[in-house]
């Protein structure tokens, strides 16, 4: 079980400004401004490269930020993924469209 696959939505349309390791992101589709930390932005960057499974996202993040992967971290990350989904920043990929 690798969890759902996700990919970013209209990543190239986002306006991103960095403020010393934090980011303000303007999303033209919704007109909303989001505030992200490094890890939040890294999820978007990662999902912009290719559709990625939740497990792969956990590994990618713990690797980048030198963390140990525990249940708390994966739960928090899944929460964030669903929030991204709700905001229309990312979307679930149907398994059949992956090949």
């Amino acid at each position, binding site marked *: 079980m690798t969890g759902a696959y996700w990919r970013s939505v209209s990543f190239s349309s986002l306006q991103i400004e960095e403020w010393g390791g934090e980011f303000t992101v303007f999303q033209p*589709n*919704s*007109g909303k401004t989001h505030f992200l930390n490094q890890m939040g932005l890294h999820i978007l960057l990662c999902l912009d490269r290719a559709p990625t499974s939740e497990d792969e996202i956990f590994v990618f993040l713990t690797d980048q930020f030198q963390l140990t992967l525990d249940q708390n971290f994966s739960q928090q990350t899944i929460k964030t993924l669903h929030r991204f989904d*709700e905001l*229309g920043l990312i*979307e679930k990929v149907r398994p059949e469209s992956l090949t």
Partner: protein
Amino acid sequence: MVYTQGHYKLLLDALTNPDCLIDYSIADWELLLRLARKVKLLGRLATELNKRDFLKKIPVRAANILRSSLIQAKRMQQLTHWELNRITWALQSMDIPVIALKGVAYSLVGLPESAGRTYVDLDIMVPKDVLVSVELELNQRGWVCQKLSAYDEHYYRVWSHEIPPLTHVEREIEVDVHHTITQPSSGIKVNSGLFFEAAVLAEGTSYKILSSVDMVLHCAVNLFQNNELAGDLRDLLDCHDLLVFFSEKEACFWENLIERANQFSLGRPLFYALHFSVLMFKTPVPDIVASNLNNKPSTIVLWVMSKLVPVALFPLHPDNPSKRDRVARTLLYLRSHWIRMPLYLLLPHLIYKSYLAVFPRKNSQS
């Protein structure tokens, strides 16, 4: 004709012949913009002026108001389109047809004038048999119903063709979910299934919209059956724009329109839309259209309507509203309820509404 003079003429000329705006005096501009704001047409004026590169040539204060309005119109367009995006997202697992109506549909179909149109809310239509589950699904995804009095709630659910408007807790756009285009209480039974069958995908998107003739019929029905007409000039202009747009694009548009209107027994609202659109905006409608429509109003009814409708569609003069215009509005208000409801329902509804007008509830939403 009354609307060819005074403040009516000032507004009508600006809409039908924007080239004349270059000659407007400061006082004309001031009045024009106040009138256009009242009927939600500032954004439209702004796009017409932009097209002609006039914004730099008119008084700068007037241009700033128009720019502001266009920015606000664009913002509302963005919000409504995004709301449609999120509604589609929330309902994707239900696998049902969701049809975008009115303003958003006009821009999805590519109507040029929609660029400056001011949107207020998002209107969508879903099949009646899934209405309850749609509402439930949306509730679970964060769309909530605004607080209504028990009376309003009952009115919406039983006698109207909508469920009470929903708004997502994080956003501001109201979503009106319809299951048909006419009021169930109006006595006109329209088989809504036929609208879904004829619906099309908007080009280059995954959103559904009504077919061209159904979209025009909806516009006409909305204006002449569902509304009170007061200050609804914009909606008549929508009908005009759609008629011009589709008749230029589609070969058999007029024939299809007549056939569809007669099929649904919606000849009368369509007749009114065509009649007043021709009268005020000189829409190029072939004569055969009116003569082939069923359910046309009698000569006397048309005479009365012709006296009332044009003055009511226009905004009142902001400084000296005329008594005659107000009377026309009241009569049309009565008419709009008369045609929508059986009389035994109408009287209590009006009494309740006038009671409210005299004793407005505290904390009621404006």
